[in-house]
């Protein structure tokens, strides 16, 4: 599999949905496979909340990409046939313009001054990338969770520039409970003594305790109750490998470890921006809150997939989207998948999941 990592600079200023603008921006990209001559075999994969452009393959010292189980030669999204494009979304912290980038105006990191970002803004940047690559129409845009929201937004914003959208473990708007959980996470970050209203970079510190706690909470929501029980049960942590003297159970230690690792690599302002983008996503808002009207004009084929153990994006939300698609009379399918991992199930291969996605991608007139 041919893998190319590249940072691409866009010099024109970008007007955001909020009305604010960015004076140009950078996109960190990674591509897998090769674009055919007609440029018709391109697939865009959109990352979830804390993901990055690194979607597949194994780089030195780095973990496999977040969708490595599904992207590669001979895999579900077969890179022998398709050219897969993955980017780090703006506002993130893995190489694209975001709060840790240097603001050309102040010469300092943007920090808290990085403008508010929406899912539509991400789609705009991805569209500019498609133009840059000469891709007139994506064969498929796919993603899970927040990535699925981007796939849906693509179908709504640019229905002629995308043949298929795979909207996985996602919804057309998140639940009240999900907004509430995001707010608790943000509160944890903001109340860290090192947060300084988001200007921690200028002060040379990091609100890592808050970020760690936020991730620990988030992590619980990505897993299912049964998965946690199966994996950890009530097993006690080996005293030799305790992250913290107060830790009793394995699950505590696991969350401590995951939280700490996350806090080392993720930016607190990005966390706030990304969760705000997720909370605000509601494409039907511009259509008098009617998703049916919102979907009517799309010619994109949809595949909506939910996982039965996902309580963060419950399957009812997937089915609701499907019913709106039916009422709108558009080509859309809905599948309910078995997944052991709760919300995170979308990251992992399973026969049924893979077959559905593969057949959807490969089904052509």
């Amino acid at each position, binding site marked *: 599999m041919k893998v190319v990592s590249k940072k691409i600079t866009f010099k024109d200023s970008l007007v955001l949905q909020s009305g604010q603008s960015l004076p140009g921006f950078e996109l960190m990209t990674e591509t897998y496979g090769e674009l055919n001559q007609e440029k018709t075999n391109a697939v865009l994969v959109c990352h979830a909340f804390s993901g990055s452009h690194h979607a597949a393959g194994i780089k030195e010292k780095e973990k496999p990409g977040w969708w490595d189980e599904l992207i590669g030669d001979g895999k579900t999204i077969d890179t022998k046939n398709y050219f897969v494009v993955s980017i780090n979304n703006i506002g993130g912290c893995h190489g694209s313009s975001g709060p840790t980038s240097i603001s050309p105006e102040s010469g300092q990191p943007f920090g808290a001054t990085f403008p508010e970002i929406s899912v539509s803004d991400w789609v705009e940047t991805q569209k500019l990338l498609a133009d840059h690559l000469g891709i007139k129409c994506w064969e498929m845009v796919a993603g899970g969770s927040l990535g699925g929201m981007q796939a849906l937004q693509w179908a709504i914003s640019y229905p002629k520039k995308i043949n298929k959208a795979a909207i996985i473990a996602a919804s057309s708007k998140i639940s009240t409970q999900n907004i509430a959980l995001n707010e608790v996470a943000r509160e944890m970050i903001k109340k860290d003594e090192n947060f300084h209203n988001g200007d921690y970079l200028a002060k040379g510190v990091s609100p890592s305790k808050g970020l760690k706690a936020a991730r620990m909470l988030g992590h619980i929501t990505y897993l299912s109750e049964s998965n946690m029980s199966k994996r950890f049960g009530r097993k006690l942590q080996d005293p030799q490998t305790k992250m913290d003297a107060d830790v009793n159970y394995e699950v505590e230690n696991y969350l401590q470890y995951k939280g700490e690792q996350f806090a080392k690599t993720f930016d607190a302002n990005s966390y706030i921006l990304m969760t705000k983008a997720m909370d605000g996503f509601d494409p039907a808002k511009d259509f008098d809150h009617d998703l049916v009207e919102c979907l009517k004009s799309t010619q994109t084929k949809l*595949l909506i997939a939910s996982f039965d153990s996902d309580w963060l994006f419950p399957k009812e939300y997937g*089915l609701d989207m*499907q*019913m709106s698609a*039916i*009422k709108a*009379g558009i*080509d*859309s*399918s*809905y*599948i*309910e998948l078995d997944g052991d991992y709760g919300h995170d199930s979308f990251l992992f291969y399973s026969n*049924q999941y893979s*077959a*559905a996605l593969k*057949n*959807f991608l490969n*089904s052509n*007139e």
Partner: protein
Amino acid sequence: MNNKLQSIVIDWIPSQSKVVDFGCGDGALLKMLAESKSVTGYGVENDPNKINACIINRVPVIQQDIDAGIQNYRDMGFDVAIMASSIQCLRRPRDAMTNILKVANECVITLPNFGNWELRVGLLKGKMPSSAQLPAKWYETKNLHLCTIADFEELCREESFNIKKRVYLNSRGKSSWLANAFPNLFAAEAVYLIG
């Protein structure tokens, strides 16, 4: 579904109508309806393998257990609902019939006739009968509520389900005078347009 049955169903369904097929299997009927009558069709199925076949056939499909209720299909603007050879697999066929008529103006129902003489002979021999329409062994069958044509039409009368059209087919999938004269004995399959 045999060719004759398929052509009857396709004939009954108006061009460019919006159709839902409950228990759509591999989506073959909806695919033909889309191709021959420009129908906007959706299949409802609960078997993952059949769902995959629908995706391969490019037929929009929804994974859902019909027994758990189809209320969410109301007000979706369906002209016709189809339930082909699946009514007898449901836990509550009568409720399903009532609900399906709330989903669409008209519905097409096809069912195997358990009163067919070949099956009666089979039963006379003291064994659970099988036929081309009912090939599965008793321990493998998905059929929970098999009925005869007489049973089904009695239910329609009792529940005031208005049968607009009906066709009886013999065990070779053909219309015959015998199957029309004595459907409960000589028809192997019946297809109804109810609305």
